[in-house]
């Protein structure tokens, strides 16, 4: 009796790229939820704009490359790029910012390098970096968190939507009234003006150990990241190495001069620290390969994030730190090939 043949193994685990990507998206739900709680519905609008752009750009690129749409368009990777980039943008940023950033990320950073699995740089961070160097002022216009005690951002959903779509807030608000720097940005400016940490901390944006709102968002991201670790979607090496390096740099500097440098807890709970550690640096495509390589890669991102935040020209350093370490991946991989079974140590 004849039978069709197939290569071994004859069983495979029921997993797929789409499932991995969906789990990453679910893990971002707490972060997005708290972001909306503190900064209003702007992020949701940014995410919708970003996802629509990402899918359109993905479809266009696949069509141009002669690739089939069905498995790739819905693999979820483009959606993750859009959500991560949207999370990095100010909630009231004009629509063309997220649209051009996501389009750049998908078309240039992803598909020009070969599409899914072939991009040497994290596409979301490339998109963010392009926006940051092109439109720095727009990217620093954050909202004060709802609990900051400063002028509350009493913007309704419609106000938010109008602001994003027209680029200007409704007539009853002025930009100055509704925007505020992020705690990282405020601290940078104040320290540059010669204030001490103590004086800078008096700013209403700060709470006991982090920035108001931001510390909770970072804790929510930590929870989502922990869930991904438990599911074994990501490995511990990169987040632990990155956060340890960031903590160590901040601990050393603030111990040396507490008046001039922010402490380690502030750094861990500010800006994109947790997002970077669990969702951006862990992007497997652009990260180092071996366990030892991942430790080096993660630690490099942690150190560079601290250096850029503290002495660099931008308030947060995660994006550039990730991109610089993406550049180092081939070198790291070359020197960290693990010992193979049966080979001498």
């Amino acid at each position, binding site marked *: 009796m*004849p*039978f069709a043949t197939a290569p*071994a193994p*004859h*069983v495979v685990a029921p*997993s*797929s790229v789409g499932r991995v990507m969906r789990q990453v998206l679910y893990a971002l739900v707490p972060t997005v939820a708290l972001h909306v709680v503190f900064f209003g519905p702007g992020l949701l609008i940014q995410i919708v704009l970003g996802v629509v752009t990402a899918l359109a750009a993905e479809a266009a690129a696949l069509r141009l490359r002669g690739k089939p749409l069905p498995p790739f368009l819905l693999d979820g990777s483009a959606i993750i790029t859009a959500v991560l980039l949207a999370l990095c943008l100010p909630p009231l940023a004009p629509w063309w910012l997220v649209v051009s950033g996501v389009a750049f990320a998908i078309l240039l950073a992803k598909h020009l390098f070969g599409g899914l699995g072939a991009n040497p740089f994290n596409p979301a961070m490339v998109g963010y970096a392009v926006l940051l160097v092109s439109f720095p002022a727009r990217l620093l216009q954050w909202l004060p968190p709802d609990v900051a005690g400063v002028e509350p951002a009493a913007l309704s959903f419609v106000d938010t939507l109008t602001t994003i779509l027209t680029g200007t807030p409704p007539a009853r608000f002025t930009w100055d009234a509704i925007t505020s720097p992020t705690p990282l940005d405020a601290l940078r400016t104040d320290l540059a003006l010669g204030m001490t940490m103590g004086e800078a901390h008096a700013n209403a944006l700060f709470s006991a150990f982090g920035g108001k709102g931001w510390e909770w968002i970072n804790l929510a991201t930590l929870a989502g990241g922990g869930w991904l670790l438990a599911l074994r979607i990501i490995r511990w090496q990169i987040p632990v190495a990155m956060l340890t390096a960031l903590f160590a740099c901040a601990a050393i500097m603030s111990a040396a001069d507490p008046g001039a440098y922010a402490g380690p807890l502030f750094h861990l709970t500010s800006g994109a620290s947790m997002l970077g550690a669990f969702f951006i640096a862990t992007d497997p495509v652009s990260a180092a390969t071996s366990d030892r390589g991942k430790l080096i890669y993660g630690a490099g991102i942690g150190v560079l994030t601290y250096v850029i935040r503290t002495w660099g020209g931008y308030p947060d350093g995660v994006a550039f730190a990730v991109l610089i370490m993406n550049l180092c991946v081939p070198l790291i991989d070359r020197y960290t*090939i693990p010992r193979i*079974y*049966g080979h001498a140590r």
Partner: protein
Amino acid sequence: MATGVRGGLRLDAHKERSTEQALRPASAVETLVMPLDQHAGAAAVPLVKPGERILRGQPIAEPGGAISAWLHSPASGTVAAIEPRPAPHRLGAPSLSIVVANDGRDERVAESARQPFEQLAPEQLREIIGRGGIVGLGGAVFPTAAKLSSARKGHDVRLLINGAECEPYISCDDILMRERAHDVVFGARALMHALAAQTCVIAIEDDTPQAASALGAAIADAHDARVQLRRVASIYPAGGERQLITAIFDVEVPSGGLPADVNTVCLNVGTAAAVAHWVRDGQPLTNRIVTITGDGVLEQRNLEVPLGTPLAALIYDCGGYTGRMSRLIMGGSMMGQSLPHDDMPVIKATNCVIAASALDLQPRAAEMPCIRCGNCAEVCPAMLLPQQLHWYALGRNLDELETHGLMDCIECGCCDYVCPSQIPLAERFRDMKPALLERLAARNSADAARVRFDARTARLERIENERLAALAKKRQELAKKSS
């Protein structure tokens, strides 16, 4: 340099379905087909001619080289033909075979009285084991006598009897250990004698309690303190030779080397039982236990099968195919080979036949690009980076494939199993190995040629120097004479 066993998978074993029923002999068939190359090494050379009458257990082919094996007739009858027949180890391609027409009388060769193995010298016993046609029954079918001789002389050799049947579906070793533990222990003790070994570990997985208690009782009955039973975690591929040696003795077999390099000889429990049947009872290897399983066959069980029995007959013996039958696999679900039809014989390597239905096989989704998630590296028991090997295999980059240890891949399929992109990694790696092997061989022969060339140059130089020296001496002498 040991680190314990790395990687591996916890898989659904699917073994209970074939171990519920006791072992029974397979029904006799009219025609048996014995491929001459069913063991590792050189093909055997026929000792019989078509038309000749033969008895069960009679040698019908002798070893064709240093690494080869004897073949014995699995039945009494006549040699119907010596001709190419489809062979399962060649995936259905023909292989020269002795075809035996069974006369159903089951007449055996007369047994000569056996000396107890303890009274034999180890080398004598190894020679006897070779004459029994015994090869590794775990699936690799390496001639056992050759393996025993690979042990390094003057070292304290350890014997490892492998009862860790880690592949899903296969239960022939489990049933053997449950029902014939005394044969396993007897065979192990004979093998220890053949190796002059002082230690023997019988290793089984921790999910085989009946086998454990049967073996424990048999070891107690043997009153041999040198034989121990050890359990290993049932993580596929715990029963891989290298993985098991690492789990039990905490050493790694060197890359490109043999277990003998770490003073270990590893043999399957089925091989040990076959040694007992031959050394104690005078029965050469003419049958083996085969698991017939899968949702595509009516009755799932283990049969003791004469070698050469067609696979189709085994399936018929077990009630035939179910309507859901879709893929015929020889071996387990992870490393077994998918066969194009069932008109092929059971050979010494046939531990299991899976008649697989769609319920046994998960359909593979369309292959996606590698997203470098690293699941493969985490489960790789050889501690390789399959995601990097895949990348370099795509570009046929032999340099990097060598650096990243392609030849150390044991093709266990763990990487394949966990890949979310559904990439057939094990198949890719299997396909790339010949190209790399060819290159390594070319380099070795280039190295050998360089050594030969250097030696020749040195030799010519030396001869020339000697000639010049002799010439100069002659001149001197001439000059002396003339002066």
